[in-house]
């Protein structure tokens, strides 16, 4: 054995120079404090986590602390974090990174996450962990000692690619690592080439369809650990279920992967009560809706579907966009129809949904969050609630941090209702509220999951009530009935929906639904297509067979 010993000779040279030049020197007070601060930051033990002590504002959950400790102490900083969605993989990863930074083992890190999550990661690391991470957008600085967050698509593109591959990273993290399951892809190749010490792969679905997925992931961390590819398939086959059935493989994998499942965490999850409320348009509103459908289908404008959607939300939302369209687009065939329709809107009574909101909230003191897709609806609701003596505050993703916090505080201490247009990944914690109204539904189920996640999360002490509004005989009813309820979107406490959609290569559900309505000649056709979409998704869901990675079921 051979221990390398590095000695510091710079110090004495510098001291000598200072003495020759008669200073400048530190005072005794400052000298003492410098020594004290070193004593205060020193890590005296090989084992254990020091990071939690430095983050007193955070309440880490047991499984998160255990995970971080296991990765640091037993996996030597190379591991797969494969907790189920919602158990805090980001927190675990942040904790591990922080630990290494405190111990002076990581100075230069590369964090590869989906482009849409770059900012969220940067915020979480800085707010929760005081890790000053740089989100890399336009002017990349790769060659310095820092913590950089970027997307794999940016990183693998030239000219970045070559520079990044030259860097020696202390720490590399890859979020949504299941996208690397195929070793023949460019992404996989790129990641394998990174020079790295510590490495974390984050995924909720370590094996998506083939057992070789896990082989490829492990080969990023520890090439050879599972033998080479031929040996691996010979010994363990190809069936993904073997990951959980083959005792030997399971044992091997447990040394490089941490997987917590919701029921393993020992946390008492409160219930989620979902109620769909179907609302009838008033006669006048229904007439307007039918009329709008007629004139928009004649116009065959690409965004025509938007207007009918907006009408289901509020007169204001629809009015504003129509007006805008009429002002911008001069060549509309049935312009007079639209103009007449605008007059019709002006005469319309209060929206049926808004009245329903009042009905729900009026007689209770409980707090409610109302989510809507449209700013105009948000304004309208605020006004309408005010007229009924109900206090509310607005919330938008675009608010600055300070304003967000302020609104949250107002909501917590003063107002009964928070009206939000965007769930926003940037975590504001609203778990002091346990009622949510989905005033109109996003056509992207992931966003719905995010909305609910604002209140149904750690720290929620009550059962959560979710009210979904949908207006009968409109597209809202179809989407809710034929899609969301079919795929049991609301019942599943947490979903691997993102992974399923990725596997089905449905990139954007919203677009999918939009084109269904757009391209269908009749309502019946649209319904059938929606039904098809939901059966494809639920089929994939069923294929996601139950797993039992940690042996919890046998032992309990």
């Amino acid at each position: 054995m051979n221990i390398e010993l590095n000695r510091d000779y710079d110090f004495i040279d510098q001291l000598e120079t200072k003495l020759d030049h008669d200073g400048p020197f530190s005072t005794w007070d400052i000298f003492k404090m410098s020594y004290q601060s070193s004593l205060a930051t020193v890590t005296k033990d090989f084992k254990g986590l020091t990071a939690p002590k430095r983050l007193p504002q955070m309440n880490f959950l047991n499984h998160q602390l255990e995970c971080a400790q296991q990765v640091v102490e037993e996996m030597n900083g190379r591991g797969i974090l494969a907790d189920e969605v919602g158990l805090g993989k980001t927190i675990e990863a942040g904790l591990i990174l922080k630990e290494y930074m405190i111990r002076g083992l990581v100075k230069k890190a590369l964090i590869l996450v989906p482009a849409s999550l770059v900012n969220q990661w940067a915020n979480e690391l800085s707010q929760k962990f005081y890790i000053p991470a740089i989100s890399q957008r336009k002017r990349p600085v790769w060659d310095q000692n820092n913590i950089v967050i970027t997307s794999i698509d940016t990183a693998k593109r030239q000219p970045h690619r070559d520079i990044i591959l030259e860097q020696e990273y202390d720490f590399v993290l890859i979020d949504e690592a299941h996208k690397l399951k195929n070793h023949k892809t460019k992404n996989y190749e790129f990641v394998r080439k990174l020079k790295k010490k510590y490495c974390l792969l984050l995924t909720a679905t370590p094996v998506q369809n083939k057992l070789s997925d896990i082989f490829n992931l492990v080969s990023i961390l520890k090439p050879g650990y599972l033998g080479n590819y031929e040996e691996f398939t010979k010994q363990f086959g190809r069936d993904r279920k073997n990951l959980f059935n083959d005792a030997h493989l399971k044992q091997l994998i447990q040394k490089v992967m941490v997987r917590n499942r919701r029921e393993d965490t020992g946390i008492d999850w409160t219930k989620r009560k979902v109620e769909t409320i179907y609302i009838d348009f008033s006669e006048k509103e229904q007439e307007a809706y039918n009329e709008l459908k007629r004139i928009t289908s004649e116009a065959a404008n690409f965004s025509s579907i938007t207007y009918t959607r907006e009408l289901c939300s509020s007169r204001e939302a629809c009015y504003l966009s129509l007006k805008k369209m009429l002002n911008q687009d001069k060549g509309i065939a049935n312009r007079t129809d639209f103009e007449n329709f605008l007059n019709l809107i002006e005469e319309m009574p209060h929206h049926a949904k808004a009245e329903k909101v009042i009905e729900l909230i009026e007689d209770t003191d409980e707090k409610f969050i109302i989510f809507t897709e449209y700013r105009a609806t948000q304004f309208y609701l605020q006004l309408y609630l005010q007229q009924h003596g109900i206090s509310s505050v607005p919330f938008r993703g675009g608010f600055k941090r300070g304003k967000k916090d302020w609104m949250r505080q107002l909501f917590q201490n003063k107002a009964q209702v928070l009206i939000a247009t965007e769930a926003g990944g940037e975590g504001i914690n609203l778990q002091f509220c346990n009622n949510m109204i989905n005033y109109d539904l996003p056509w992207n189920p992931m966003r719905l999951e995010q909305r609910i996640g604002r209140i149904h999360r750690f720290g929620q002490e009550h059962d959560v009530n979710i009210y979904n509004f949908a207006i009968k005989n409109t597209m809202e009813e179809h989407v809710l009935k034929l899609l969301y309820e079919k795929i049991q979107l609301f019942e599943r406490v947490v979903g691997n929906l993102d992974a399923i959609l990725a596997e089905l290569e449905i990139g954007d559900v919203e677009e999918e639904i939009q084109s269904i309505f757009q391209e269908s000649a009749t309502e019946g056709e649209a319904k059938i297509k929606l039904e098809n979409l939901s059966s494809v998704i639920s089929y994939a869901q069923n294929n996601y067979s139950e797993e039992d990675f940690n042996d919890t079921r046998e032992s309990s």
Partner: protein
Amino acid sequence: MTLANLHDFLTDYFTANECEVIENHNGKLQIQLNDTMDELLMNRPFYWQYVKKLGYPGEPMKMSLITNPDRREEEGEWIHFGSPRLHQIFYTLTTQGKFARLFEQIETGQRTALVPWLIINMEISYTGKHKKDEIISMGLQLINGAMKIDMMNHLEQVRLQSSIADFSYTMTPMIRLKSGYQRIINYFEDYLQHKDHSWAEESWNHLQEEKKLLEHFYHNTTDDEAYENRFEQEVKDIESLFKPTIHLSVINGGLFYLSQVTSNRIMLSPSSDNQKSSRIH
């Protein structure tokens, strides 16, 4: 010599850096920064560049620090052992407080000789599969070569100042600074020789195992040169990860002139903990 009270530490820090303490009550500290400290802590280089260019007097900011966790919702920065502000302050100290030349304060009308000491506060980092650090404060008397461990604690009793007192004079070292430093390094090498290094052995063995796995993984691949390069890179990666290394780095240090009486008292006083004093001639 440990940092027991964060609030007092911060008060001392700003006082030592000649900033006015405006408020100091129940775990809240308000400081009027001076130009130097504003530049050092407030991270606004453009402002200072601009002010200096135009020759205007700068307007340094005030800083409110809260050390009482019960008041952390109040206006100001909550300071605790992980807060970025505290670590920024610690960081400024690593350069501000690195080099010293200090003299014992003597209040007597008689001519007093001061004995030169080289003080080195050393951090020893042990890095393998895991990492830990150890801090040892060491003093070397530069006339007779006597060494004393735990030096910072002994110096706590001594009144030290930046300039030499009237009637005091310094003795010329018999041991040159650099050879003195080498003696200290030798001491640490000897200290390390006699330590248990099972941690290193464990890391070393682990490294060999990981290397074997890698070799096996790449063994049968008929692939080309690119594969070969990757193999070498990955060997390098795991070496940097597991190779046992010890790092000696100086936290701070300097030349201290102490009276004969103080020097003798320090030499004779027992050292705390299990750290033993030793003599090297």
